[in-house]
């Protein structure tokens, strides 16, 4: 919420800056903006739900890599390759941890979208009030009130523009996040395959390495499923966001200036 409107500088003679006709044109566009923001929410929610397990899976993978390193140590020279692979796995885990910390961005995006809906609601009521004041015969007090409402509308329009930019920015960041998880999934799958290959040549340590490989494959599969679900949600959100930005751009036309 921005600051309350100030009355300083609003004179009796000051005419309202926005006519009811302009407000009505605005309302059509804002209605479209609202519909598009509403469309983004379920997709973001789906992605948010999908990413919920990311921190847990990162931790599982980290513990697995530690155990694998211990097993590699016990295997001596036969575990050298596995040791190298587990160190590489820890690098992947760090990337996942970074991402899971940024996963709060999903919640922020949800928050920005709901704030935008709230701003749109307030804007709608302010515009209704302006129309009420514009169609009735008002005196100086009414004209000044209308000017104050115009100022409040201008602030709210700035808010909604900022919020839409936030939604767009947040969605783009999420797309990056999904791409990084995708890379990690692909690399972790290769590591699991390589550890399985090393297990064949590990003699008495074969079972131990095979167990590591199988567990890692399971985690990778979970990560892949999670990321696919998040990606599906985000594809929808990105498309809605593109449409939202196109609609919101209409607000910046010169004839819409407040």
């Amino acid at each position, binding site marked *: 919420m921005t600051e309350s*409107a100030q009355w300083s500088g609003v004179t009796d003679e000051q005419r309202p800056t926005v006519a009811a006709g302009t407000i009505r044109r605005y309302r059509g566009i804002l209605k479209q903006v609202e519909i598009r923001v509403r469309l983004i929410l379920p997709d973001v929610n789906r992605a948010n739900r999908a990413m919920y397990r990311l921190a847990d899976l990162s931790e599982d993978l980290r513990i697995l890599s530690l155990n694998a390193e211990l097993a590699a140590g016990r295997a001596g020279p036969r575990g050298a390759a596995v040791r190298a692979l587990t160190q590489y796995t820890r690098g992947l885990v760090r990337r996942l941890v970074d991402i899971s910390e940024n996963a709060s961005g999903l919640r922020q995006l949800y928050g920005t979208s709901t704030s935008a809906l709230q701003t749109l609601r307030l804007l709608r009521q*302010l515009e209704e009030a302006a129309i009420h004041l514009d169609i009735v015969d*008002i005196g100086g007090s*009414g004209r000044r009130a209308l000017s104050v409402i115009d100022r409040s509308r201008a602030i709210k329009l700035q808010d909604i523009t900022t919020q839409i930019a936030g939604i767009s920015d947040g969605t783009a960041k999420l797309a990056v996040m999904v791409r990084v998880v995708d890379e990690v999934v692909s690399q972790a799958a290769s590591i699991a395959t390589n550890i399985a290959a090393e297990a064949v040549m590990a003699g008495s340590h074969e079972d131990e390495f095979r167990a590591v490989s199988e567990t890692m494959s399971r985690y990778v599969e979970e990560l892949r499923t999670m990321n696919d679900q998040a990606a599906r949600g985000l594809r929808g959100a990105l498309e809605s966001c593109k449409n939202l930005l196109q609609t919101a751009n209409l607000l910046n036309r010169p004839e819409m200036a407040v």
Partner: protein
Amino acid sequence: MRCFKLFSAGDHRWLAFGQDHERPTSIVDTNQVVVCSGRTTMILDPGGIEIFPMVMGALVHQIDMETVQHIFMSHQDQDVASALSLWRQVTPASVSIHLPALWTSYIAHFDADAKFVPIPDEGVDMRLGSVQLRFLPAHYLHSSAAFCVYDPAARLLFSGDIGAAELPEGTRRDIWVADFADHVAAMTGFHRRYLGSPAARDAWVEMISRLDVDMIVPQHGLAFRGDDVRRFLDWLSGLAIGTGIEAYRSRAALIQRESRHG
């Protein structure tokens, strides 16, 4: 939205706004009340977000919004407080929001940036222009923290939900009760169910009876004046309230029957 003059003496005025034909029929009708003294105005129970445009449109005919230095909220309900953030947009930045201390963090859900003047449980007096207003407790009637506003100079009591009536659309001609006996039917259901504490009711009636009151103006329905003030207090004193308790009894009886058969 109609405007009713409740009291006027020089620059000291009480006005009520309500009975709005443009109001969505799904929402309860409310009276938005305004008191002015000189260049200072207080809006009492400014109303919900759905009716903000109509209230604002009606208000500017009567008052200069620049003079609105105070907003009073008798309790925390949506029909009282949900337009708070909008009112703060159109009133001076210095506007004080008076509300029951118990509800500040709850009403903040409507507007987290609003600065509140919490009213302590026992109430408080405040000066508005040249008049003295008294915030009087009305706890548990219906809200667990609620206040009325009494103006000794106007002998007017804004009673919040006490005295509220649910009137059929199109039956209101005025803000004042015309026939108290007829009006009782419109008040009974509301008071029996929404007011929960006979002890609070008795204490409130006793407190109000000690004051000189010529008018009682509730947030819903019609206002009382003259002899109807006493009639209302007597009627309220004898009314069985807290009827929601009956729901416990009937549910408990049902549970008992089920356990016998089960």
